[in-house]
Each structure stands twice: as structure tokens, then as C-alpha cells.
């Protein structure tokens, strides 16, 4: 009897409390600072070009082979009258998000800190109706960094 009354008061106290539910599509939980979604390329704002030089390091290191990298001579290099110090630059870059397993190895091996894991909600809400739409090309990969949505990298 005492136990019943006690538990009734407990349930009443939970009734008075604020619900813990987050209504997901409308409200997003704040992501942890080291959240890791899919890899994206970074944009060098001072040179108006990607950091990536197309060195294939990430492509070779990728365990699931979800990347395709093509390199070209940088049309903006100092030798041809430009102001960039990058001799080679990325021409085309595809990442198949359908294959990527978010292992972070591409970020670890990159010599130019040109690739990073997406740490925004946009990286988690990538559902599409066709698998082919999960293959991201260079403008798509750079979009997050160019718009400044990416939060700065936090060292562990």
C-alpha cells in the first residue's frame, strides 16, 4: 500500500517533468564536436581553389575503394602567371557515399589536410531514392567547406 502510494507520487513527478522527446525533422540535437559523417574536400579561401592536389594518397588508402581522383596542371600556378603555389591541382573527384564506411583513413593519410570528415547535420541526412545519387562530384564535395558550414576540426 505504501509502495503503491510512493510509486503514484513518482509517476506524478514524471508527469510534471518536461518531455524528453525531440521532434527530429524539425529540431536537431546538437552534434558532438568530433562528430564524423562523410568525407568532404576543403576549400582554400585565400587561393580560391581546393587544397587538394590530386595526389591519389586517399584513393590508394581507401579500404572500400569509394574514391576516384583525377589530377591536372594548375592553371593558376605561378609558372603560368597565376598566384598559387600548387603545381598540380584536383581535376575531378568522386566519392561514392554508398560505399564509404566513414573510417577516417583518407583524412589521416592526406598530405595537404585537404579532406575532412563532415561534422554537420547535412552529412547525416543524405538519403536519396537512387544509389547513383550518392556518388558526389567535386562541386558537391566542396560545397560544405565553401559555404563555411563546417565547424573547425577539434583534435582528440
Amino acid at each position, binding site marked *: 500500500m505504501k509502495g503503491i502510494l510512493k*510509486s503514484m507520487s513518482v*509517476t506524478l513527478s514524471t*508527469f510534471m517533468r518536461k518531455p524528453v522527446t525531440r521532434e527530429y525533422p524539425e529540431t536537431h540535437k546538437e552534434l558532438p564536436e568530433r562528430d564524423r559523417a562523410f568525407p568532404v574536400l576543403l576549400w582554400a579561401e585565400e587561393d580560391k581553389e581546393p587544397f587538394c592536389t590530386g595526389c591519389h594518397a586517399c584513393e590508394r588508402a581507401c579500404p572500400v575503394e569509394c574514391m576516384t581522383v583525377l589530377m591536372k596542371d594548375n592553371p593558376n600556378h605561378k609558372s603560368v602567371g597565376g598566384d598559387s603555389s600548387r603545381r598540380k591541382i584536383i581535376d575531378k573527384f568522386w566519392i561514392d557515399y554508398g560505399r564509404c564506411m566513414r573510417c577516417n583513413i583518407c583524412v589521416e593519410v592526406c598530405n595537404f589536410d585537404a579532406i575532412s570528415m563532415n561534422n554537420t547535420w547535412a552529412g547525416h541526412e543524405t538519403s536519396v531514392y537512387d544509389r547513383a545519387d550518392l556518388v558526389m562530384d567535386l562541386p558537391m564535395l566542396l560545397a560544405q567547406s565553401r559555404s563555411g558550414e563546417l565547424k573547425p576540426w577539434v583534435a582528440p
Partner: protein
Amino acid sequence: MTWPLFGMDMPVVLDLFIRMNIIVILMTVMVMGLIYIERKVLARFQMRLGPTRTGPMGLLQSVADALKLVAKEDVRPTNADPWVFELAPYFVFVPIFIGFVVVPFASGLEVRVLDLGLFYLLAASSVNLVGWVMAGWGSDNRYAIIGGLRSVAQSISYELPLVLSLLAVAMVADSLNLTEIVAGQAGAPNILWQPMAFLIFFIAMIAELNRPPFDIPVGESEVVGGPFVEYSGIRWSMFFLAEYAALFIMALVGSAVFLGGWAWPFGEQLGLPWQIVLTTVKTSMMIFVVFWVRVTVPRMRIDQLMAFAWKLLLPLSFAQILVNGAVLVYELPSGLTHALLAGSGVAGVFIMMWVINRSVSRPRPRPVLIPRTDQTWEATR
């Protein structure tokens, strides 16, 4: 012969027709509202939000559920008894519905004022037991028949304390006419004079309605929904409708008989809208407590349930009736009468708590393992 309705004189048949239609519409809307409110309240008890997607704040959730149930296929198992199976929902639904005839929503706002209103209501609402057995029997399903028989056992057991507790109040109110009982409480509600009867009524009411912690007939984890296993679509929704309508009617009766209905605390001269508000508030309180108990207390075992009804509630309600009779027959001064009634009620509540406490805290017999000797070990070789 004419009856006044909304200030107009009308032929009896038309008057009855209009009142019954109002009741049917009210009942359906109330049940849908109750289902929505139960889901919301239950969700808040579990720190959830409940339905939010259908309409503003999920208000249309019940409408969506009703539409889905109506659109669903009405399946009848091959081996089910066609007549019994198909008629069972009506036997559950109609008695609850005709019980609404005497319920006093406000003064002058009932279908009929019957002198034996309370008696009629209890007699009518206990017929739905037949529907439960028919549903269990007609389904040709073992779970269904176990559920049906459990519901019979439980409802018959709890019918007695329910009736006797209401009888105790009827003795104090000196009437079986629900409208008179309510009007007689303009000064003070009956719960003051009969607290134990209210407690017994409330417990027996939850048991009658097969709501947790007394939902043994429909316990999902034991008999997968009891008598309703084989039902679907519109027939199943009739059971559901009857269940919530019964909850509503029982809460109304409880608030009318014990809490003073529309008469307490502002007297009979209150305007009709305010009377309805008062009844609604009291009924909602009763229903809220039913939800609250539902969310708190785990389901009882069938033997605990039976023991609770026959060994505790029934003797106590008999004792209350005896005390009431002894007090009322001598026509003592009003103050002394009321003091004796209230005192006996409070004492009864304490006796009840003491008995429950004792039975809960009693050491339970543990199963003893038979010690295995070397001899028996050898014998098995």
C-alpha cells in the same frame, strides 16, 4: 403526452429520438476525445509527447484511427460461430449505451429521470459481460475463451463490491434516483460521509472496466488481447468504443454519486453551462486518476485479484452497509449521524490499508529443493 426539451413541448417519441441522438453523438465524440487524451496523458507520464503529427497537436489522431479501423477488412475465422461472433460486439456496446439514459450531466439534462436510476444503470451495464463471453466463445480461439472466462470471473467478483458500495451511498442519500442523489449533495458531497465506499467503488470500477492493473482478461502478454483476438476493423472498434464509453459513464456516475455532480459546491441554482463544466471537471478528475493508476501499478495475478475482491472489498462493503443501517435506523441528530458515518468510513479505509499492508509484507513460502542424497544418486544410475 409531451415532454419539455430545450423549453419546447415535444411528442415523447421525437423527444426521445433527439435525446438519444445527442447521447450517441456525445458518446462517440467523447470516446474519441478520451482515446486522444489517454494517449497524451500516458505519454506525459512516460515523459514522451504522444501523438503530434496528425493535425494540430495530434488532435486528429483518433479520427485517423477510426477511419483506419472502418476501412479495415472485417475478418471472421472459418470455424467461428457466425451468430455468436458477429453479435458479440453489440452485446458489449448496447448495454453501455443504454446506461447513458439515466446519467445526470446537469439538472434536467438526462434522457429520463428514473426512480431506480442507479439500479437500472448497474443492471444495464453488467449485461455487457454476456458480450465478452460471446466474443470469447464465438471466436473459436483458446486465448479468446480464456480471456472471456477470466473477464466473467473478474466482472462477477467486482460487480458485488461495486453495487454494495453504491448501495451504501444510496442508503445515506435515501434514494436510488441519480438526479435526487446529486441534488441531495448540494451541501456536502457523499465522499465525506462514505470515503471507504468511494475507495471500493473506484477500485471495483477499474476492475469492471478491465483497465490496468486489473486488465487480466485482455492482458496482451498473457492472452494476447483476450476475447478480441480474432476481431478486426469495425467490430473491434465497437469493443473499444464500449470500453471507453464505459469508462466515461462510470466516471460520470462516480462524480455524480460521490463527488456531488453538478450540485456541489455551488448549489442547484447554478446556470446550466456551469453545471456541465462542473460535471466535466469532476469526471475528468476521475478519469485522470484512472489513467494515473494505469500507468503506475503493474498487473495483478488472477488469484490476487480474486482474493482482493472476495476477502477484502466484499466484507468491508457489507460492514459499511451494516454500519450505515445501524446508524440511520435510530434517527440520531444529523451531526452525530454524519460523524458516525464519516468515522466508520475512515476507519474502514485504515482497516483496508492495514490488511493490504499485512498481506503484502507477509513472508512468502519459498519453494524448497529436495536434497539429493547419495542413495537417490545411485538409484538413478
